């Protein structure tokens, strides 16, 4: 059979963000694939050096359009460590609450994108409908659906009163019901299973070799989760399970992510129940003393790392971001080898593509 080169991207209905794949196919089988990145490189890391620590927060929020809060959280953690600030417990709890809600919203969004790409529009619509519940809550809390602008160096801006907490909890009940239904669907829906099982398999060895993190790694049976492995308050006081699955295919990733959504809901409930009293933030100085720090936290897509070097001024001397998507992206040529054309969308969405994250 003759080999044909098929471009996927930078413009393709499959991709919501620009990324280029050159697939060499024989009939329907993918023989080879070449990945090209950099279409949405915005120079955020360099730009951060030009702006003050305060001004960087809205910029860093825009590294990723989905997990925006966890990026600012990691950044603020780093800056707080550099300036020796102690965030009040209420601030930490509210930060974690936003993080967990963001995980719910990110995972449901991902479920929708995967379903859409394998031609299952109904689950796409339902997942995004249910995601709206948590988006509404976040909008009420922070004033934005995805760019929350919640974090400041030294704490959070938002606060949660009793009445609002009660209304959130009732809506969580609705959401939990929907997540349970989605789980049932993933475990029993025949066409969904037929499309995702045995597709895009990553072995634990490959996961370790490529340093893959997050749900993709956990779906290959690699048991890593920073929330448990590097417990920061409030996660050291919360109970949750780290979801893993040995299969390593897209189906396992689906299952892991939706089960994580359920865990996150439990986490949110615990956070609201245990929410301590007190101030939500402390005032931070504009100048940050000289030093360097590596700040890590568990984003919806895995571990995100910030390296910040300060030089006793109000601007960072160097800032480096390692996003979790990058690690998963580079495994795609491996996952695609031997797959059919029809598997390409499933495999590509299976790792939760966030190209803006990867390019920064």
């Amino acid at each position, binding site marked *: 059979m003759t080999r044909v080169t*098929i471009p996927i991207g930078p413009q393709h209905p499959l991709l919501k963000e620009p990324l280029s794949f050159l697939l060499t196919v024989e009939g329907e089988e993918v023989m080879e694939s070449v990945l090209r990145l950099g279409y949405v490189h915005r120079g955020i890391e360099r730009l951060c050096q030009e702006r003050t620590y305060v001004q960087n927060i809205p910029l860093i929020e825009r590294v990723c359009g989905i997990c925006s809060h966890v990026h600012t959280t990691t950044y603020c953690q780093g800056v707080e460590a550099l300036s020796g600030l102690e965030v009040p417990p209420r601030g930490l709890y509210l930060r974690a609450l936003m993080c967990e809600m963001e995980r719910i919203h990110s995972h449901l969004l991902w479920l929708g994108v995967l379903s859409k790409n*394998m*031609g*299952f529009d109904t689950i796409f619509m339902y997942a995004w409908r249910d995601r709206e519940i948590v988006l509404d809550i976040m909008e009420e809390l922070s004033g934005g659906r995805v760019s929350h602008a919640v974090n400041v160096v030294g704490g959070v801006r938002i606060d949660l009163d009793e009445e609002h907490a009660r209304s959130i909890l009732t809506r969580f009940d609705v959401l939990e019901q929907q997540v349970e239904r989605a789980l049932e669907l993933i475990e029993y829906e025949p*066409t*969904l299973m*037929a499309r995702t099982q045995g597709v895009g398999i990553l072995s634990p060895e490959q996961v370790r070799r490529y340093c893959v993190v997050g749900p993709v790694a956990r779906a290959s049976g690699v048991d890593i989760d920073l929330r448990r492995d590097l417990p920061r308050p409030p996660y050291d006081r919360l109970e949750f399970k780290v979801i893993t699955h040995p299969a390593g295919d897209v189906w396992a990733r689906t299952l892991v992510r939706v089960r994580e959504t359920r865990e996150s809901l439990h986490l949110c409930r615990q956070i609201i129940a245990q929410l301590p009293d007190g101030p939500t933030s402390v005032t931070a100085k504009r100048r940050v003393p000289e030093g360097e720090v590596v700040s890590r936290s568990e984003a919806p897509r895995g571990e995100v790392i910030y390296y910040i070097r300060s030089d006793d001024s109000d601007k960072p001397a160097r800032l480096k971001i390692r996003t979790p998507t990058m690690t998963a992206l580079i495994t795609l040529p491996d996952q695609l080898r031997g797959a*059919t054309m*029809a598997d390409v969308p499933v495999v590509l969405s299976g790792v939760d593509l966030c190209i803006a994250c990867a390019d920064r």
Partner: protein
Amino acid sequence: MNDLLGSLFALLVFPGLAFLSTCALAFDWLDRRVIARMQGRVGPPWFQPLADLIKLLAKEDILPTGANETVAAVLPMVSLASVLTAALYVPVGGRVAASFEGDLIVVLFLLSIPALAYFLAGWVTVGVYSVLGGNRSLLQYFSYEVPFLMALSTPAILNSSWSIAEISARQLTWGLFTLPLGFILALVGLIGKLKRDPLDIPKAKSEVVAGALTEFSGRKLALWHLAMSMQTVVGIFLLVNLFLGGSKAIFLAVPPPLAPVIFGLKALTILVLLSTFSVLYARLRIDQLARLGWRVLAPLALVQILVTVWMGG
């Protein structure tokens, strides 16, 4: 002279172009609306399919260099013409424009022409996605067509006639009850034939952009869409005649003026069934469809034929 006028009327008005395109647009809208409501959305307003058609007709018609322009222009017309011709032999509401013993075979043949035209469309407009979509459509054709034909032949065997109008008239109890398996197989086959979700493999957006029609635009694309929608209508009418007893109600005798209403209700039921199927499942892979077609559907169709023969056709 009267004959000529009659044929012209049949071709252009009823059950030809005017009637069929109205039905096609209405069914298209209803389909989209029902799917939208099942997914919790609102869906388009009633004039949306018409607006889409007019917009496409007004758009610039371009083809990539290297494409065979004549063939690309002829193909949508060929599929439209074959669907229109097929419609002449399918009774609507108890009325049929033309009928002879064996017209079922002709209609089935005419309804496969669009599938072949679709495949050719992929080949003459040179594009990787077009060729891939064309290839897929041919593979899909081989998977659904055999069980589909076998399923549609069962009511013919049972009623010992190969004329659609005859089969429709002779059914005392609906084929749905005497041949339940055949009906389901015919429905699945129809989904494959119409390239609807979940068997929209040849035009899967996230895989091959728009399949064989990727490079089409303007008037040609409008004709393609019209032909596809009309094919949906004719396919549904065919199933109503073969399996749901045409315009007859189930227990009571229907006064002739009400016959079209009954027929329409049955057609809408099948349409809603098709919509439900497209909401219910994810798109299959082409190898999965081939396996389904040859390992499940074809043997089941064979069983249904044997049972029908044994029942004494």
